[in-house]
């Protein structure tokens, strides 16, 4: 996982719960990095999971919820780095369709060592989009949050649900986005 994600998490925690909370989890989790992150470097995924676990118990929120909130926070941080085509997408739907084939492709070009999820799309209905998420990191809730952040950016009310989830033993996650117009 890229340093950016950790730094964003730190900002998310400091802004919402104070820097002592962040310092607390760093002190208590004994990470290889010692909580020292630079944006372009890669850090073990386990550090993220450990931090999320410690935060969830310290703040008394479920890990999925914490990760969702973090995703929403993360979206406007990542957006500036997206390619212009994506930034100028005409709709949320169009934007989401670009995540796999445009946005993450560009990320991969810039950072060949990045670890990105894979998305397939199910577009059967006009007013909904199912994003099929696959990743060994099982960060489907982060996706939910990011999508929520994107919806805010595009001013598009949505409902998100996950009829299928890897955390429930499925092979992949079906993130269903319903566009409320």
């Amino acid at each position, binding site marked *: 996982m890229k340093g950016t994600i950790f730094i964003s998490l730190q900002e998310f925690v400091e802004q919402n719960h104070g*820097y*002592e909370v*962040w*310092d*607390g989890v*760093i*002190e208590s989790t004994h990470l290889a990095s*010692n*909580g*020292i*992150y*630079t*944006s*372009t*470097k890669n850090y073990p995924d386990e550090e993220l999971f450990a931090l999320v676990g410690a935060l969830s118990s310290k703040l008394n929120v479920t890990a999925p919820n914490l990760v969702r909130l973090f995703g929403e926070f993360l979206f406007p941080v990542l957006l500036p780095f997206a390619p212009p085509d994506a930034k100028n997408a005409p709709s949320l739907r169009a934007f989401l369709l670009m995540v796999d084939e445009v946005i993450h492709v560009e990320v991969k070009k810039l950072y060949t060592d990045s670890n990105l999820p894979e998305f397939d799309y199910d577009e059967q209905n006009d007013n909904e989009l199912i994003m099929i998420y696959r990743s060994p990191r099982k960060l489907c809730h982060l996706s939910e949050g990011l999508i929520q952040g994107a919806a805010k950016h595009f001013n598009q009310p949505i409902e998100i649900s996950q009829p299928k989830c890897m955390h429930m033993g499925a092979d992949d996650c079906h993130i269903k986005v319903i566009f409320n117009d």
Partner: protein
Amino acid sequence: MTDVDYKNEFKALERILMRERAARKEAESELEAYSQRLYRQEQQYKLDQSEIDNKQIQLEFLTGLLAETWRKPSLKQIIENYLERTSLFMVKAHCLFIELTDSAVIKKCQFNSAKKSDAETNLTLEFKQLLNTLERKKVYSDLKIYNECKMYSVDSITKNYHGIFSHSVMLPLYESSKSSYSVIGIIALLYVNDNDININKLQTLESSRSMLSVAIERKRSEEQLQQQLIELADVNQALEQTQQQLLEQEKLASLGLLAAGVAHEINNPVGFVLSNLDTMHDYVGDMQNTFKPLLLDPGTIDIESCNQLISQCRDIDLPFLIQDSQEILKSSVEGLERVKTIVSDLSTFSRMDNDELEPIDLSLVVKKSLNMVTNEFKYKHQINSDLLDHAQILGSEGQLQQVLINLFMNAKHAMQNGGTLNIHMYREKNKILLSIKDEGHGIKKEHLKDIFTPFFTTKAPGEGTGLGLAISYSILQQHSAKVKVNSEVDKGTEFLLTFFELH
């Protein structure tokens, strides 16, 4: 907040700050590593760039060579160009071309002294020394066996050489065998210092070799072709000369053919003019006798002698004598006029300077030609001619006469048992048409396309050369005249000639 709380908060801030510092340091060293990487990449890029530049130069050398080689008009210039380009490309090498025979003779030698760094006169001497001491047999057989670029230390291919060159790369360009010997064309690159040898460039040069060989091969066959062309042109000229001679001969032949007829034609009037003159001789004798007394002594003339004179005049039928003399003289003059005409017609016909076209009267030419053949037609044949008064065209009288006589004679030959030759001349717009029509055996369909071909004849051997129509055709072409043949077997043949009328 308690003191402890403050203290804890302070500690937390301190640690966060420490981590930030550590992160910054990490980021800075990351940055450092990154810029070093960037620098190395730049260096690599420069290296790549110079490699690309090198490749570019090599490519330019090859494409330039390719483009120019094909354009050069001769083998010598191809090699000259190659030497020049090679010498510019192989900056440090001195280039020399030699053609070595299997008996170790240097057949050709070319070098390029365009390079500025060459002290030219010295270089010539250096080349000379090298060639003089070169072990040519060895080089020849080496290159013949390997047929590729080969590097030598100069010592290994010379004897008693003391010049400036230390190394040489020999580039065999072509091999060829003549009847008595075979040769190899070689480019020799001569180096003063072996450090100057650039393997990369040599590889490029080696790859230029096959292209050059092809070009040389082609140029050589081109030159051979050129030679053949020259020979062909010679043959053609000889042929043209022969044709010209044949043409003259044909003319002489038809002249010969005509000679008998013409002789007859001349003989006839000459014969009767002679017998006329003989009669005149008698008449003049009679008259002389009768009038003699009048001339002797004018004083002795009396009635008696007058009566005697009158009766003598009656005896010799003087009125008849006078009238007949007049007729005799008139017909003699006519006869001689005829001879004169024939002789002058014959002379236009036989004039050899027949190429100039000038304004002539076609009717007159037809008449003259008819004059020359009337004798041929007078026994079994008739001639029916219907000509225009005047028909000005651009032409050569002599040549057209030849054509017409040939057509008339062909017509006569086609009418072995007699018939009429119809000659009709008329206008159509700005054209003059001349129809020569016989009632002969006609021309078979399958022969129609052949009759203008030289030596085509249906006549028995010795009777016709088959050149008549061929020559007529080429003459008519020179006159921009068209020929059309209408023929029906056993009915007859019409040759229809069309000329442009001159205004």
